[in-house]
């Protein structure tokens, strides 16, 4: 009896440890980011870092104004969300509710395949095909713009959004649809007003995860946005994102130097942004499920 109890206790502990591993790791990562990144505050003030307009990290003295980078990331992400959310949600609705079984299988496989394409390949295709196209369509001086980045990233966010939203829609109880049909609703009315409405929390989670993927994406965005550290006035200008800055400059830095700390500080900014996105999603999820 006691042996059995002991065994139970051990198993419980092990499962508990596994359960909190990810939280512990997140906390450790955040502490590490703070430790390495906050050193930059000895060099520039927090206000100057967040709202300074000049990013010249290797000059003497260096200037660490991350504002153009923050705006760059936000602009590319908003653009990508504006493209991928409507298409992604509509495509999930079609796959879950309307498509015949055969089409459904083919579409799902296709979308999973899209998720399997490495980001560097998508970036390369974006660079050689999308860039020149955008340049000629809008009559710009260069096709490496925030919009190019947004479109490229929209394709990368789509698989996440579609597959999670589709799961949420499929999980809506069958009785809802039957009740709607009994009330005389058309297929579209049922799909839009009942099923989509009931699946809202899941669809929001899908959108948030998609946006999370976009804001953290590095390689593709580095190849297509031009990486000019300027404050953009429109989505048709080149931008430099937070992630591309870290990736492009990390090799140059000496461990413990100012530039190294500044890149970690950018990491903190990224972390805070994704944390905020997840936080908002979480709040919204709870509000809807309680009702």
């Amino acid at each position, binding site marked *: 009896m006691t042996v059995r109890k002991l065994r139970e206790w051990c198993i419980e502990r092990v499962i508990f440890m596994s359960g909190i591993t990810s939280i512990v790791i997140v906390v450790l990562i955040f502490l590490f980011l703070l430790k390495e990144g906050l050193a930059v505050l000895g060099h520039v003030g927090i206000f100057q870092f967040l709202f300074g*307009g000049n990013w010249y990290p290797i000059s003497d003295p260096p200037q660490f104004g991350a504002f153009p980078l923050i705006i760059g990331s936000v602009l590319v992400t908003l653009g990508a969300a504006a493209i991928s959310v409507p298409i992604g949600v509509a495509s999930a609705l079609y796959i879950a509710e309307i498509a015949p079984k055969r089409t459904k299988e083919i579409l799902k496989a296709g979308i999973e395949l899209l998720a399997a394409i490495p980001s560097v390949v998508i970036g390369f295709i974006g660079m050689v095909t999308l860039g020149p196209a955008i*340049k000629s369509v809008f009559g710009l001086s260069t096709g490496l713009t925030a919009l190019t980045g947004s479109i490229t990233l929209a394709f990368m966010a789509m698989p996440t959004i579609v597959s999670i939203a589709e799961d949420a829609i499929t999980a809506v109880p069958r009785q809802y649809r039957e009740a709607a049909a009994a009330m005389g609703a058309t297929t579209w009315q049922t799909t839009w007003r009942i099923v989509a409405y009931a699946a809202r929390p899941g669809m929001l989670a899908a959108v948030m995860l998609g946006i999370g993927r976009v804001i953290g994406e590095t390689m593709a965005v580095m190849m297509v946005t031009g990486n000019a550290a300027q404050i953009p006035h429109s989505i048709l200008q080149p931008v430099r994102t937070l992630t591309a800055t870290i990736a492009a400059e990390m090799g140059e830095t000496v461990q413990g130097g100012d530039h190294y700390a500044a890149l970690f500080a950018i990491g903190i900014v990224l972390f805070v942004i994704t944390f905020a996105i997840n936080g908002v999603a979480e709040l919204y999820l709870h509000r809807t499920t309680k009702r």
Partner: protein
Amino acid sequence: MSTHRLRTIASVAVVLLVFWSGCSRKSDSAKTTVQIKGSDTMVNLSQAWAEEFMKKNPGTSIAVTGGGSGNGITSLISSTCDIAEVSREMKESEIALARQRGVEPKKVVVALDGLAVVVHPSNPLSQLTISQLADIYTGKVTNWKQVGGHDAKIVLLSREVNSGTHVYFKEHVLRHGKADAKDEFSPQALLLPSSQAIVDEASQNPDAIGYFGMGYITQHLKVIKVAIDETSPFYAPSIALIQNNTYPISRPLIMYTKGEAVGLTKAFVEYVLSPEGQQVVRRLDFVPIL
């Protein structure tokens, strides 16, 4: 059962092998591999050297990785490579840091490189002075018209900040070689991750201007002639003009070793400096040292 046991034996063998090869790398003089890291400008060149060298010396292995000059220096300082390749000299601060970590960098000039300034073939412009180039890249001049070209906004193409080419161009063109100058690249400049990316963009964009090592010139680009000022002659980069230091924007390509090179590293550096090694330099459109 027997396949299971076989698999176990195999995996143990693999682990032992990995462990053994990890140990055998320890001694410096008997080493059969050399790690080279650094300048992207030099990656293709070093790869060619490495291939020739390995063909002549079977059983040796020369591993070349790029990542930029800064990357190479960082690796040399942290002892994760044997040779750092750089397209600029090490800074005082970097040398000091290396000494602090017990590494005494030893410099060897292995080749020369001219920076080519290129535009789209349809661009009517054919020559620029260093000051004009500086004005273009700092953003003082934003339209081709202002330097005698067509009426269009100039699209600036540059390498990323981890590139030795970027640093060299900033110090010798934007700042005219003055140590106390504060000129910076215009924030509008597109920072592209590789020289090839600049070639691609410049060859399809009629309004673009770019720069890179002359090894990357293709016939889809027009090379701009460069002069120190209006009164001096304009030159396009060529081997002879770079060797006699006439072409205004050229630079040495350098290998740094940890102290005096020994063993295989020494043999490799000697090969690079030999007439045979310098033949490779010529083949890859760089400029051999005299």
